[in-house]
């Protein structure tokens, strides 16, 4: 067990746990718009931590360059596609769930 191995463990395991929490959120949250947030968790910190853990394993090689590119592309495309899905749902007239009692009169969009 070298120090690099330990560092990559420290990144990989929380990354996987965050991914699972995001998947759980995708199942548990009540409506489509809040499920987008659940997917967001896995896309940002979960994926970043897993790839960061792999970068520690890769060392200063071509592999790490590719992992960095993968991370950059992932971080650029995932909010774009989330936004696209959300906007399509909004224009198609899908109503957001706003059923929480402390939310009355605060919905400025209507």
């Amino acid at each position, binding site marked *: 067990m070298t120090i690099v191995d330990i560092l990559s463990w420290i990144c990989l395991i929380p990354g996987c746990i965050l991914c699972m929490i995001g998947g759980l959120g995708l199942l548990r949250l009540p409506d489509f718009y809040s499920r987008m*947030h659940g997917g*967001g*968790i896995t896309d940002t910190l979960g994926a970043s931590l897993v790839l960061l853990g792999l970068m520690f394993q890769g060392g200063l090689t071509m592999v790490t360059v590719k992992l960095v590119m993968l991370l950059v592309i992932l971080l650029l495309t995932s909010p774009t596609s989330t*936004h696209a899905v959300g906007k399509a749902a909004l224009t198609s007239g899908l109503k957001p769930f706003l059923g929480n009692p402390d*939310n009355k009169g605060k919905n400025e969009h209507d």
Partner: protein
Amino acid sequence: MRYIFMSIVAFGTWLLWSGHYTLEHTLVLAIGILSCAFVVYLAGRLSIVDEEGYSIHLIWSLALYIPWLIWAIIKANIDVAKRILNPRLPIAPRIVRVTGTQKTDLCRVIFANSITLTPGTVSLDLDEEDIVVHALTKEAADDVQSGDMDRRVTTALEQ
């Protein structure tokens, strides 16, 4: 000029990813150059070769902005993860409007993407002035409405 810049970037990326630095495999190298030229032609046909693809000056200001964004993402991630794991599911989804003070399209897109990247807030729609944001909790909505992120994007990228 922009076409030359784009060709250099495309070919550099190709070289980096393919790993053919020598002239050993001439055919592969020729195919690489041809595909780069084709990509530049396609981009020209789509008319997306403009100032925005050429903004190298943004790199330094992005270097200042990105660490703050990463910190914000980590905080928001932990908050949303806690709420999902909480058995009572303490969420209060709402839709708010946020005014972006950015002038250029690129900076507006960076701002909207930053909102979406931060868990707990998703930008749903963009119009001339406002960004429609769906927030998972009251705290996330207040946070994005306080304009802290907006100020940071504007001051970091439009100076």
